[in-house]
């Protein structure tokens, strides 16, 4: 290859990358990934199911009790069968989607917000503030999270709000860790020094120059974290410290099924299957986002 063709190719490459923004390139990489797209489609379907739960569910999930049908097996009219009290299991599972997505998204939102703010403060300030925050992060990461959630839920009294708040406020450590490390390394770069030299204020440097650079990894980590949070919520409800009966949640229905596991195994089967599908969808989406937003991470 001669020098002139190489430079021509380079110019073409440069102009091509210039008019494609970083995000549209990421979208191109993402949409080529079928598994990730599949995950996204499943999540959208679940979201529709949660929004239109009253229209989609054939029966009332709480009030419509079928007499004499306790633990009844699946039939055509009741494809998931009946729960331990004779309610339609399909309707309860459909309504359970609301809890799973609500807790998954809101708790992740709280955790990401706290993590970004705390991590940015630690990474940017350095000094004793950083040392203190780092030890708190270590502590949270080192502690069996279920134990912490169980204690907090018992103290605050189990409810939907408690579940969201408790999972959100204990889950920020891993986000803070990533943000802190990234900001520490970005702080030493020339563009930050330049911004400082012309007198840009600290909070503006963090907001305009540093945070946009850490958003990629945070989006990936948040998406991958949602699955884990949905499992945590179900575990809490399963232990009786999450969503209170008679409100339908997957973990709660699983707990109902546990008591009758050898007599009516289908009660525990279906909500668990929904948890697995949802968690897989979020994990596939997260993996796809990682490959698209952070090509260095690919193996």
């Amino acid at each position, binding site marked *: 290859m001669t020098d002139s063709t190489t430079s021509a190719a380079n110019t073409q490459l440069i102009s091509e990358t210039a008019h494609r923004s970083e995000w549209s390139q990421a979208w191109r990489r993402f949409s080529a990934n079928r598994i990730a797209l599949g995950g996204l489609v499943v999540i959208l379907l679940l979201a529709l199911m949660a929004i239109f739960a009253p229209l989609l569910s054939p029966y009332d999930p709480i009030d419509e009790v079928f007499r004499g049908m306790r633990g009844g097996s699946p039939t055509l009219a009741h494809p998931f069968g009946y729960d331990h009290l004779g309610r339609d299991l399909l309707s309860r599972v459909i309504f359970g989607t609301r809890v799973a997505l609500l807790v998954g998204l809101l708790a992740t939102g709280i955790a990401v917000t706290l993590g970004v703010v705390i991590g940015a403060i630690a990474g940017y300030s350095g000094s004793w503030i950083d040392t203190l925050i780092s030890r708190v992060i270590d502590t949270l990461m080192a502690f069996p999270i279920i*134990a912490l959630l169980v204690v907090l839920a018992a103290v605050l009294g189990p409810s939907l709000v408690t579940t969201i708040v408790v999972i959100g406020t204990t889950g920020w450590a891993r986000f803070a860790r990533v943000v802190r490390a990234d900001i520490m390394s970005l702080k030493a770069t020339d563009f930050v020094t330049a911004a400082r030299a012309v007198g840009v204020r600290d909070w503006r440097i963090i907001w305009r120059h540093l945070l946009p650079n850490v958003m990629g990894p945070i989006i990936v980590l948040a998406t991958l974290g949602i699955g884990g949070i949905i499992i945590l919520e179900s*575990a809490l409800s399963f232990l009786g410290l999450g969503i209170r009966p008679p409100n339908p949640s997957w973990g709660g229905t699983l707990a109902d099924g546990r008591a009758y*596991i*050898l007599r009516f195994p289908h009660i525990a089967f279906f909500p668990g299957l929904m*948890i697995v599908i949802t968690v897989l969808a979020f994990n596939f989406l997260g993996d796809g986002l990682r490959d698209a937003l952070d090509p260095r991470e690919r193996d």
Partner: protein
Amino acid sequence: MLTYIARRILQGVVVIVLISVGTFVVIRLMPGDPTYLLLGEGEIRISKEQMEAIRARWGLDRPQHEQFFIWAWNLLRGDFGDSLIRKGIPVRQMIFEAIPVTGILNVTSLALALLVAIPAGIIAGVRRNSTFDYGTAVGSTLGVALPNFWLALMLIVLFALYVPRWFGDLPLVGRIPPFGLKSWQGYILPVLVLTTEQMAVLTRVMRASTLEVLTQDYVRTAYAKGLPNVIVLVRHAVRNALLPVVTVIGFRIAFILSGTIVVETVFAIPGIGRLFTDSIFRLDYQVVQSLVVVLAVLVVVVNLLTDLTYAIIDPRIRIN
């Protein structure tokens, strides 16, 4: 090396102190006075003098910070107090009875998980994009997404309902009991559940670190000087690829204990996890707060040990 150890121990102590303070504060935030709990929902009437005597004995009449130091000092001496609900039984005894059960459960499943994950990860890494590689990828993806309590219930259904119906008694193990620990067979299902998740995570880590190591110059050199594949793998690649696995185990000890809490509850196994959830529901806060600190110490000690092992295996850590 000595400064490294000293620094890590100091960090561990700070974490334990933070957790003890946190636990103490959270437990005090709970509605009601522990003395009312002792009396069982306040139904038994006692005189004011008796109440004061109880409060004085527990130091509840003193300022909060003094109470903390009394509690912490007692913990340090190994005095966890008595259970509030199971009267007269020292908390220490309850914890010591539960620790071996949880220990056997988790050590067995971790060992099994490593036994499968290390070779599977190496093969998947070496034969990248092979059928085996895709197979382990699917397996570990599922393993991470399965909630352990659901897996536990499905295994109970499988082994208590269907296996006896289809196959009768199994060879070697006979009939597997769905709940409890009356015989050693009771360990089978919980160990299976705990192994699944660890195996999934560790296989992924082992595969990734094998891939990483195989691109290193010293591996290429080893091939270039004509060493057979097996020798290069065993002597050069795998030894280094194992390092991240050690870190991940240390890092995962908190997850492992979380899993134990749920799994022991499902299978009705009298370990630390079950003691924990039972005590929460029985409002036995004396047990709960002691267990929280015990768990924290356990996690910190295991983390410290893995870090030190790491520093011994890998001299690069010591220098930095």
